[in-house]
């Protein structure tokens, strides 16, 4: 599969207005999304994998076809790859204070009814269960070079992974955990374009950087944006099943450029710097 992309940087003061403009353009309410993203890096030469080693072998849950695809993806070279797990607001540890947000940010829409302070986390209605966390492997190749088109194009593939603790499985495939972060944002669908207005949140610092994915999530309010001013990234993407079909690719990039034209007066969508999306592990 191929993916065509355009990016734009959105200053935080423009975020609210842009959300509304996108809602108007796409005629849909924004779908709020929170994703845990784990970065894994290949540490073995491909081809050395002889079989599945250790780990919680829940692999039956993933279909055989997915497994084959995963193997193929992972053995193609040395790459960084991402494991994405959707989470919800309720998965985060409740804060001792009231949950209402001071500056009424849209990220908290719908959850700001003040709850009584929870005495202990165990009494909270919902506890994040790491063992039930669903995961998806998202592989992205480095964007194609020397394409004269005005959009970023790259090969992509994704596959479902077993639930729960994913690290042993990834280790077995030759991938080591690097770091993890949280992506929060809003998704819009405009015809065949997926518009994702998001930003990266860091887990609270202080504790030692863990060597494996977190089993518990801190309160969402304690998460700090990677970009200190809190700016967002606007990503518009189209996925093309058959990347070798020039006609489809051309149509897709035209659609993206059409969107870019429509949003011209609000944001400047541009192809990303190719090397910043370089997933090759050196």
């Amino acid at each position: 599969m191929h993916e065509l992309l355009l990016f734009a940087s959105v200053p935080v003061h423009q975020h609210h207005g842009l959300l509304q403009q996108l809602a108007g353009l796409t005629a849909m309410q924004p779908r709020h999304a929170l994703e845990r993203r784990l970065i894994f890096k290949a540490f073995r030469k491909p081809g050395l994998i002889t079989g599945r080693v250790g780990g919680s072998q829940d692999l039956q849950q993933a279909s055989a076809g997915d497994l084959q695809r995963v193997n193929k993806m992972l053995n193609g070279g040395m790459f960084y790859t991402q494991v994405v797990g959707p989470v919800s607001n309720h998965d985060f540890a409740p804060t001792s204070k009231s949950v209402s947000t001071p500056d009424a940010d849209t990220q908290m829409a719908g959850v700001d009814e003040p709850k009584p302070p929870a005495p202990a986390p165990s009494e909270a209605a919902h506890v994040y269960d790491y063992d039930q966390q669903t995961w998806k492997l998202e592989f992205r190749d480095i964007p194609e070079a020397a394409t004269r088109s005005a959009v970023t194009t790259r090969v992509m593939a994704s596959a479902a992974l077993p639930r729960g603790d994913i690290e042993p499985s990834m280790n077995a495939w030759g991938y080591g955990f690097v770091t993890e972060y949280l992506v929060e944002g809003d998704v819009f669908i405009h015809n065949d374009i997926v518009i994702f207005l998001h930003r990266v949140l860091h887990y609270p610092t202080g504790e030692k950087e863990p060597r494996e994915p977190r089993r518990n999530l801190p309160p969402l309010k304690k998460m700090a944006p990677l970009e200190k001013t809190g700016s967002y990234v606007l990503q518009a993407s189209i996925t093309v099943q058959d990347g070798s079909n020039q006609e489809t690719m051309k149509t897709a990039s035209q659609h993206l450029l059409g969107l870019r034209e429509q949003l011209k007066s609000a944001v400047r969508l541009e192809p990303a710097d190719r090397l910043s999306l370089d997933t090759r592990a050196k």
Partner: protein
Amino acid sequence: MAPLTSEEYKVLEQSRQRLVQLTRSLGSLVSSLEQGDPLPPWSSLQSQASIISNNLISVTEHLSDHRDLLSSIVAYPGPEYPGRTQENMLQQLMRTKLDPRVEDWVARGRIAGTESSPSALDFSRTIPNPSAAVNTSTKQLTEPELKELWEWAPVEANQEARQRNWGGHYTLEEREAGIQNVVTGLRRQLEDDDASEDEDEGDEDEGEDEMEVVGVHRKSSGGIEFDIAPHHARAVEPVVPLDKILRYMTTGHMP
């Protein structure tokens, strides 16, 4: 007789200029009526007529302002005027009596003036001001005319009313031009209740906050256009460039 001072020359020169303007605008109206085929639109005729009327006002005001001077001036040919060769021109210039045709017009105008305004006698000693004459020509309607007017008016008003979709305090034209410009003549503030009507349109996706559509408007050529992001009081530009963020998202390298 004492020669004219420069002030008095100036007055004469101004009268000449105003008369020239008047004849020009009359001439252009005449030529547009004669040559225009089809006739020029009523709006252009109307504007030409108002130009002429303004010219007339300025001429008459000027003449009445300097009535003393103008009535005391006597014209006579200078010794160097070629009286023998240009006798016709001299006689035209020197005539004190109006042309018989012009005299007829003046007489007709005076009769019309006295008929239309009961107070015309008051103006008879001064040069009548045309605008004042128009203002005073409020003729009383006779009994049958009044009756006719009252029979006509309700029907006409009703027809005009049926052309509009009633509701609210302002017409569509007024709303488009901006309601703050409308002169209502009222002391109290009319509220524009149309603006708050387009809510409650159907709550299918309950639980989600409705996003209002702002910053977008339809282009005249079709399609939509976004407003340029308004200047924000707390404008904070991102510090970390986009490619650094993307690099972090891809490989986990801190910027």
